[in-house]
């Protein structure tokens, strides 16, 4: 009886507040736009399931393929998420590598320095870049002062600012798994490779990189998955030309108040995300099995 309650309480909670809401999103994405204009309240009449199914249609999904905005937003979200994941890897790897090679007594402090920004408000970290990247911002002032440029660069409200924002906010997610992989690595392997005639660079390429592969893969997924549906960064740092699907969904819902289309956008985004999520889960499982 007690075991039943223990299982049932969190189970029912998640069913009610996680699974059922998705079913509702699915249902609304299949219903007519006119029906769902606020203050329309969808009522669930379970006694007439037949009518419920007759009401459904795929109009909103057809609409997503007809209007350029949506598929462009999906593609540009994919592009932004992929590129910024690559940049984060390129910037994060040397940092993680440096941490793993740092003296033992420094490592806890370095770890804490990587984790600290993660606990700091996401919104504030994005906001901090607004003052740096604006036309009168610190970056432009600095570049003007050094004489590298003679006119301020427009960075804020462009895609470049979005890339900077994503790399900055998700960098800890990349550093930590790579550091964990490098930290576990046996240092004598490098020595063995060097003894056998590898140059340091070759030893790094042939030994260190393959052994940290799982860390890199985990880090890439941890950056890519949330970056794809990102809303705060494109809306604060990006401009009117920045198309990201999270922003489109938000505007569809709050500005256009078109709930069925917003729901359809959400369903498609979810379908796109299923692939990387499943791949990520599989990678994690393989790693866990390899460790045992």
């Amino acid at each position, binding site marked *: 009886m*007690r*075991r039943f309650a*223990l*299982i049932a*309480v*969190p189970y029912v*909670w*998640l069913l009610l*507040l*996680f699974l*059922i*809401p998705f079913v*509702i*999103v699915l249902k609304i994405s299949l219903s007519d736009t006119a029906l769902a204009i606020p203050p329309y*309240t*969808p009522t*669930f009449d379970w006694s007439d399931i037949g009518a419920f199914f007759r009401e459904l249609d795929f109009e909103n999904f057809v609409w997503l393929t007809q209007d350029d905005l949506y598929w462009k937003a999906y593609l540009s979200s994919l592009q932004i998420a992929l590129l910024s994941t690559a940049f984060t890897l390129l910037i*994060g790897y*040397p*940092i993680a*590598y*440096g*941490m793993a*090679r*740092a*003296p033992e007594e420094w490592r*806890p402090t*370095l770890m*804490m*320095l*990587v984790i*600290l*920004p993660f*606990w*700091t*408000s*996401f*919104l*504030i970290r994005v*906001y*901090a*870049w*607004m*003052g740096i990247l604006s036309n009168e911002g*610190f970056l432009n*002032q600095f570049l003007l002062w050094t004489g590298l440029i003679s006119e301020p660069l427009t960075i804020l409200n462009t895609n470049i600012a979005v890339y900077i924002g994503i790399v*900055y906010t998700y*960098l*800890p997610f990349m550093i930590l798994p790579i550091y964990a992989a490098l930290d576990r690595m046996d240092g004598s392997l490098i020595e063995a490779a060097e003894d056998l005639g590898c140059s340091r660079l070759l030893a790094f390429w042939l030994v260190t990189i393959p052994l940290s592969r799982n860390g890199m893969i985990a880090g890439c997924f941890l950056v890519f998955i949330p970056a794809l*549906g990102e*809303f*705060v960064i494109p*809306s*604060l740092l990006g401009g009117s030309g920045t198309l990201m699907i999270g922003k489109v969904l938000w505007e569809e*819902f*709050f500005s256009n108040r078109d709930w069925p289309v917003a*729901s359809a956008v959400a369903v498609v*985004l979810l379908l796109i995300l299923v692939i990387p999520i499943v791949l*990520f*889960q599989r990678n994690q499982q393989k790693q866990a099995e390899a460790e045992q």
Partner: protein
Amino acid sequence: MMRLSWFNVVSLTFGFAFLYIPMIILVIFSFNESKLVTVWAGFSTQWYGELFRNEAFLNAAWVTLKVAVFSSTLATVLGTMAAYVLVRGGRFMGRTLFSGMIYAPLVMPEVITGLSLLLLFIGIGLDRGVLTVVLAHTTFSMCYVSVVVSSRLVTFDRSLEEAALDLGCSPMDAFRLVTLPIIAPAVISGWLLAFTLSLDDLVIASFTTGPSATTLPIKIFSAVRLGVSPEINALSTIMIGIVTVGVITASLISKQNLVRQRKEEQLAVRAQ
């Protein structure tokens, strides 16, 4: 022992500069006298004064704190239960679905979670306000708590629980007297994680709140959309300060615990 090459030193220096300079600039300019956030005009704490006189911000801070305390506490209870069920529950009907529902919110885009919860609340006719935000935050943060707690439950020696049961403890007592004290650090860090997630959340709160309950991130977001303001810098500085003190204290405490544990182990070895 490996040595740091110049490349390591350079990448660490630039890496940490990249992570910290934006926040340092933010903090410095919260003490700027000028309203122009990019021109230094002398030291002043006037923006902090304005912040504390700004009733809208204070109200939002109060709402946020209330939501965070309730949701993180509820999430810790539910998340710990879920972790226990996942690790110790054995087989039961719908276990795969259950573990799927625990892990899915971790990778779900916030816009989707927010939208789906809002549609649910409207569907069942629940008035949006503090309660709905608490429900929403509890739902996603209980999953984080459950991941943190279950990683601790997996590593701990099950025979301790069995010994307690053999010695006549009821399962409830065994949990209270043996399991809970051992997993307590994980439960506490789960609570802290849930608390910060709730404090931070903008997107899900925006979807699930009503006009009566504006949280601090929503307030900050609407202010920030109009541009950089010294008041927001002051507010950010306070929040960064709280987090920094919290994280450093937590790491010092865990370090102390580790040292104590090592000492006890050494004593135990010597006593043998």
